[in-house]
């Protein structure tokens, strides 16, 4: 947990990120693009390729 005055590691990381983001707008935009790409890739994998939402399979051995 972060303590009062933002001395905890999370608060420090947050402050560091905000400071750097303000000075590196292009980097933030690229990171946002990569994140969008990655999230869509995960979504596509889950919906189309993972089989985790696929049909129930007939298992003859346990019939």
């Amino acid at each position, binding site marked *: 947990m972060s303590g009062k005055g933002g001395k905890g590691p999370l608060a420090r990381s947050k402050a560091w990120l905000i400071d750097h983001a303000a000075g590196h707008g292009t980097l*933030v*935009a690229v990171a946002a*693009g990569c994140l969008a790409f990655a999230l869509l*890739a995960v979504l*596509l994998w889950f919906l189309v*390729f993972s089989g985790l939402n696929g049909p*129930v399979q*007939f298992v003859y*051995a346990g019939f």
Partner: protein
Amino acid sequence: MTDANRDDATVEEASQSSRAGRWPGPGLRLLLGVAGGLLAFSVAGLAVAELALPKSGRADESRIYDYVYASGKSENSSFVTANMSAGSRLCFGSSEFYISKDLVSMCPQAVFGESGSGVDMTYVGEGYDQSLWQAIAAGAYARKTTNKKVMLVVSPQWFFKGNGEQSKFSSKFSYSLYQEFCDNPDISDQTKAYVRQRAQALGVGTTELRAANGDTPLDRLNAVAYYQSDQLRLRSKLSNVISLAPKKSVLRASGESTGEPDWAALLAQADAEGAQRCTNNDYGVYDAYWEKNSQYDPEWYQNFHEADDEYADLACLLRVCKEAGLEPLVCILPVHGSWYDRSNVSQDERQYYYQRIRGICDEAGSAYADFSSCEYERYFLCDTVHPGWRGWVRIEESFYHFVNGTKDAFLGGAGYGSAEGLTSERATQAGEGA
């Protein structure tokens, strides 16, 4: 220009320069970053789809695909119809297609697929696919096949109390097939409305049903997304389907005609193989299955008169076939006589089931291959449910005769009269003339 004016102009230029240097601002830059990610994803997706995934058209012609039983095959009507053998007919069924040469060496893959008989069976369907799934598939496939004679393999367990395994329909539902079913103009609005209502009742999402039916422009847009993503999924499974397809036998590859198979010899072979595989029980069930499942008895006190929805779905399937120009042969599989006796399913119940199926066929004007007389024929089934050594030979023989328009002891309905069955003189006996 005074000094004061010069100072103002300098400040204004500096301000403009500063604004120009910050364009695009942080918010817009973020937006552009996300848009760039989406665009890159679309481009990468299209590239992968085009370059990495097999297409649903013609595959390696040295293989035979009709008898492959694999997830993702039956839902891909484009692949199945593009790779059907020339003399093949669509066969809609379920888990019986799982039975392969390893267990029953006279299964269709061997008898038809490795010969030059001129007849083949293209399997469509997997375990748990029942009448409604088949109705959708029949509507989807009808316009893509030139051979209009088809077989529908009906399993008794679809009509167990509570409509068999209908609860699994929503997970077996194929958007691609349903979309193609809805797009078939030969099927009446009334039939489409029935299928839609049944699919909804069995748990298919309203959004998918609205999309496939194109209720609104937004639904039509959804339909494109649903269909394309499902096609992508099906293409991702094609490598496995292709790898499971056996190479054509030398005889098959030569294209030589071998004529009608020798059914009597096949029955004799079936008896010998059945006897060899079934040694630890009196039911004619193969040993490995018996060891695992002898205590498993889902037939215990079953009945066939609490499945009105499934009977109605079967009638719908025959209606779809008629409207779509298909000529179906309904294969009525028998129950396992001695096993059902042990399970306390009365002969009245069993006869009620057969009679009701025959009635639905007669009402639709459809032919049927009625194997109800084979309940006690040893080795007709290989376990308590699926056709085995004798069973497949009898089904293949009747199917062959149906395709060629000749008489057969088990064919009935639609101009064939009533099926005479096993006791008929016409019924092939093992080793006749062999």
